[in-house]
Structures are given as structure tokens and as C-alpha cells.
């Protein structure tokens, strides 16, 4: 049997072959409304081919998703997308993206607080932002603003100025 179809060497980092010790691994979750660019963002920052599960949007979801702002968008994220960033050889960050309108799986239950807060903030700001929750808590976060196809990420301070520019401008 063969599970081929992925590249073992994709984004290979030194720490992956040093099994004596493992880097610290943590995660952030990019939450945000439909079509703001969560998947694009994950893909932009990931060192590996982003692992993405997307399903073509069905008529059932058309009633729920407002397409007025993104008429060309034909798919929406229905599962977790994620990428990986090796920040240092002993610090690895996994970046997850998921539409906040969907229930978060227990797998990332640690960020439930973020999922509650993100929609509120998005509503406050007209639904044009994606919230970045760092480390699974609301200890600190930044608001990521994405406009159109320009993926430049401008960070807006929310509660903790020190974390405001946690998102690289790309």
C-alpha cells in the first residue's frame, strides 16, 4: 500500500531530522469572515505546501454566505487549512485558518475564546477583518485587515499594542 502523493521533502527543516529533541510547537488561528483571505494568508506565510481542505460551495451555503463583496469566489473553506512556519529551529508555528461561522472542532478547542470574540469584532468592523488569535488565548491578538486581492496585512491594535504587528506585511 502506498500513501504517496505528497512530497516528503516539502519545506524540509533541519529540526525534522534531529529526533533527539523537538522544537517548541505552538499554533495561531486565523479566524475571519467569508472571503477575507484566510486561506490565502495561510498559504502566503507557510513554508510547506499549505494543507487545505476546501469544498465547492453548495447552494445550501449560498443562503448563508454573503457573496456580494466577492462575486468571483466559488469556494469556501469548510475545514481547517493550515501551514507551518519555522520561526527558529526550536520554535515552530502552525497557522490554522477556519471560517468562524462554522463550529470549531474540538481539535482547536483551545481557541474557542477567540472564535467567540472574532465574530463580534468582525461585526464591529464591518466584517472585513480576520482576527489572529495567538497561542489559543486572548492574551494578545491583532486584527488583520485584508482588502481585495492585495494580501498586504495591516495590523490594527486590539487590546495589546505589543502584539499589534504580529502579522507580517506580505
Amino acid at each position, binding site marked *: 500500500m502506498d500513501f504517496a502523493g505528497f512530497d516528503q521533502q516539502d519545506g524540509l527543516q533541519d529540526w525534522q531530522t534531529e529526533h533527539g529533541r523537538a522544537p517548541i510547537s505552538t499554533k495561531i488561528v486565523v479566524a475571519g469572515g467569508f472571503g477575507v483571505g484566510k486561506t490565502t494568508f495561510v498559504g502566503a506565510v507557510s513554508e510547506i505546501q499549505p494543507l487545505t481542505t476546501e469544498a465547492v460551495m453548495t447552494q445550501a451555503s449560498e443562503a448563508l454566505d454573503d457573496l456580494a463583496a466577492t462575486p468571483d469566489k466559488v469556494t469556501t473553506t469548510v475545514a481547517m487549512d493550515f501551514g507551518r512556519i519555522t520561526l527558529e529551529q526550536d520554535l515552530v508555528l502552525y497557522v490554522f485558518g477556519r471560517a468562524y461561522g462554522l463550529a470549531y472542532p474540538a481539535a482547536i478547542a483551545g481557541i474557542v475564546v477567540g472564535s467567540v470574540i472574532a465574530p463580534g469584532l468582525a461585526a464591529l468592523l464591518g466584517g472585513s477583518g480576520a482576527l489572529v488569535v*495567538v497561542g489559543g488565548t486572548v492574551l494578545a491578538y491583532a486584527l488583520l485587515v485584508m482588502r481585495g486581492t492585495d494580501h498586504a496585512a495591516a495590523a490594527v491594535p486590539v487590546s495589546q499594542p505589543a502584539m499589534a504587528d504580529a502579522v507580517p506585511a506580505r
Partner: protein
Amino acid sequence: MVPSSHRGADRRTSRVRPYALTGGRTQFGHVLLVETLVATIDRPEEQLALTRGDWAERVMPEFRAIVELCRRMRSVAEISALLRMPLGVVRVLISDLADQGRIRVYGTGHGPGSPDRALLERVLSGLRRL
């Protein structure tokens, strides 16, 4: 990705129900967060055996696939996505492999609850350097 209809070299496991892979189990004894890193425990004398020997023939192909994949240290989430297996199933199988001494499960390097400020600041400065 079309699953082939017979047991062949390129078949996917989509026709096997997840509960069948785990024998109905949903519990696992290790801390396996999505970002938890795992790696195959090197057994140089068994390198061949892992892929062609008795062990590989005895166990489910899913076990072998995980062992192969984890020759490079990876997270639980990566394994689940790359093997297209549900996270819950992968967790049970990884836990089994860990119990068998085939896979090493590493700590994430921080507690299960709130990450401390020092870690958050390291993440922040790491992101700034990108």
C-alpha cells in the same frame, strides 16, 4: 483523488470506515494536540524490516504509512492531512505506535493552557523577522 475500487498500490483508505481502523476506539493515552510533534523512533537494524519485513506485513498499512511519514518529524495535523485520515483516527493510531515504541511523541514545549508571555513574545519576534 479518486479512490480505486480494489486493494491496489494507489488505493486510498476512504472506503474503510474510520472506526474500523481503530477497532472502534476513540480514546488515546498520549497528549496529541494538532501541533504536537511526533517522529519515528530510529531502528537502524530494522530499517528494511519497517518497510518490507514482518512488522510491516503484520500491521495495517496505515501504521506503516505513519511510520514512514514520521521519519521526518511532523505534527499530528500534518499526518492527518497528508494521509487524509480523520484527526481522531490518526490520534488513536499514533498513540498505538507510541505504545509499541515505534513513534516518539514530543511535548509541545509549553503547557496545555495559556501560553506564557515569553512564548508569545518569541512568536511575535519570529513573525517580525519573516
